[in-house]
């Protein structure tokens, strides 16, 4: 799209309406709603059936999904659609006829892949293969559920012996996909944190103890302020990561990703704490956001990412 008047926040508002519409529907119905609103093709070129927008639009859209607790592989759909743009499978994903999950650890060569979510409903699963990646027919591999972190939306392990490859990504294409994944998952986590912060702020303003709202207590106000600071830092870091510097050089995304995941975990855990006993219950959906962000954290081994940032810094100094 070439209309410079388009603003990412306007798109995020429209995306929010679609995501709200998809709420409570089946996986297939969600797919239809989100596809109809063009969300899978946000970062796919117009001539390839997408909206032709860049990642600066993807960030607020995915953040809204995190904020509204969309439990659907929106990021995976956007990533695979973008990586396979121009191919039939890519078009099918943009249109919502097909769906894809991504297993972030393991590889075809190792014979297994792990840290994938939404696999049971997906048509395809993307796994690493050599320096690149392979898109597999999900039905051709053996799938094992790991519900320990999230019984409703579990992580999956796939045994890949005999799995059928339907498309491949070069090393360069897979590296691009991983860059975008860190941006978009970082944004999803930032949105999830923001949603938790908003819930906590609302609860603190309405919950009265000793004749005053909890939000009158300095300890509560200061904790909430730190949550806001980290939310803003996450968004600012992600937007910076996708912008070139003054000399036109691209930036690394790892610090923004690791920051967003760490910040989001802190914010959601604090939001649970601030809700008291209610925060610990299944009834209040804060646990859903915590599970979702921790799944991303585990898939990318954020602690390992931080260590690798340190190693790279040491090597360069």
């Amino acid at each position, binding site marked *: 799209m070439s209309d410079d008047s388009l603003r990412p926040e306007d798109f995020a508002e429209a995306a929010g309406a679609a995501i709200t519409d998809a709420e409570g529907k089946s996986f297939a119905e969600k797919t239809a709603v989100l596809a109809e609103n063009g969300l899978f093709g946000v970062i796919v070129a117009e001539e390839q059936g997408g909206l032709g927008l860049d990642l600066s639009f993807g960030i607020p859209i995915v953040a809204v999904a995190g904020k509204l607790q969309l439990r659907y592989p929106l990021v995976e759909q956007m990533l695979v659609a973008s990586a396979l743009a121009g191919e039939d499978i890519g078009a099918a994903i943009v249109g919502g006829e097909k769906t894809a999950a991504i297993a972030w650890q393991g590889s075809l060569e190792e014979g297994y892949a792990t840290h994938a979510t939404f696999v049971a409903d997906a048509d395809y699963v993307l796994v690493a293969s050599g320096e690149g990646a392979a898109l597999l027919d999900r039905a051709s591999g053996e799938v094992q559920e790991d519900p320990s972190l999230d019984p409703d939306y579990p992580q999956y392990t796939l045994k890949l012996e005999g799995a059928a490859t339907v498309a491949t990504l070069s090393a360069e294409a897979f590296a691009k996909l991983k860059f975008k994944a860190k941006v978009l998952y970082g944004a999803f986590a930032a949105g999830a944190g923001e949603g938790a912060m908003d819930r906590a702020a609302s609860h603190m303003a309405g919950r009265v103890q000793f004749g005053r709202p909890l*939000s009158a207590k300095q300890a509560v106000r200061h904790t909430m302020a730190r949550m806001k600071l980290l939310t803003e830092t996450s968004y600012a870091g992600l937007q910076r990561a996708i912008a070139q510097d003054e000399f036109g050089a691209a930036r690394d995304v790892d610090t923004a990703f690791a920051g967003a995941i760490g910040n989001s975990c802190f914010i959601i855990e604090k939001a649970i704490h601030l809700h008291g006993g209610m925060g610990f219950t299944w009834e209040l959906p804060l646990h859903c956001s915590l599970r979702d962000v921790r799944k991303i954290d585990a898939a990318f081994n954020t602690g390992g990412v931080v260590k690798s*940032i*340190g190693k790279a810094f*040491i090597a360069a100094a």
Partner: protein
Amino acid sequence: MTYNIEVAHPDPATSRSAYRAHAREWLRANLPSSMRADSVDYKTPSLNECRDWEEAMYRAGLAGMTWPKEYGGYGLTLREHLAVNKEIGALMMPESVGSVGKELAGPIIMAVGTEEQKQEFLPKILAMKNYWCQGFSEPEAGSDLVRLRTRAVEENGNWRINGQKIWTSGAMKADYCLLLTRTGTVADKHKGLLMFAVPMNTHGIRVVPIKSIDGKESFAEVFFDDVVVPDSARLGKPDEGWSAAIRVLSIERATNRMYRPWRFEAELKMLVAAFKSDPELAKLLEDGYYQRRIGQIATEIDGLKGLIEQAVDQMAGGAPIGARGSLNKLFWSETHQAFATFAYEMVSQIKPTASAEALRAKKHFTTAYLFARAESIYAGVSEVQLDIIAQRILNLPKDL
């Protein structure tokens, strides 16, 4: 020391990188190694050396970028200011000795000063012809400035000032004090606050240095005993100066010393390079604990860069910065305090037989650790910033 100030200033319109490239080239070519804190040749520069360096930077187009040309500035935008600051941060150069003038007094004078005051003060601030100190805090009025008691009474066209200021950075060297007084009583709270540009050599001003945690005497108590200044020293009308100061302070909190994350990064490089320079210390860098801590600090530094670049984008787009400066202040001060603590933990393991670079780092980071204790206090303590964020950004109610 002589610097190359006969240098062409680029037109930022020619390319996005033009001004940053100019800043990079000039600073690297001109900053003496004796003024680089990461150099083994480093010697604490004198006030005159710092002044000459800052004046040269100004002549080279690297200070006063956003100030109007008629007052000695270069009439550029915050984007060029940020570009230059990135390069200032990337080198371990001395902290500005003229920052109170450039970042506080100057903008306030521009906002409320008379034309005569602007012509008199502003070009001299940029050219480092006079130093300023900030006379706001008092023994009973730190973060809570409405309790300030220093009184200004109008007498026959002059003002008679009595009171005491404290934590006044640079008072011993200052030519002028940006002085906040009140014309009424403490019961008036925010009403009747009045600002002055007071020459520090005025009869009745007494400066008593205070020794700080790092052993330096960088701030002082300043006593005003029957100090009489002409009405021409007044900055704005009663109330006007203070409301302008609040406006300026909120902008400054977001934009002043915006080189910080790039400087923190340079400091982190200095720390790592010092350890790499010594075979025994270099082994520590292979430890996953240190790698992870360094990665975490680098992550926070990048987050701070994001906050600052976002603030500049918003202001360049005409959006008011409002209370968002508190986000930046809180984040930089706590990020750097944590970094300084970690750096001290590392350098405390350096033995006297270590490399010259390591010994230099030990000295630098031990002082930095001590000085960093002030960072969550000055320019608005962390608790005040947290209150501002809770009140003005999150709008959290205090009552039903």
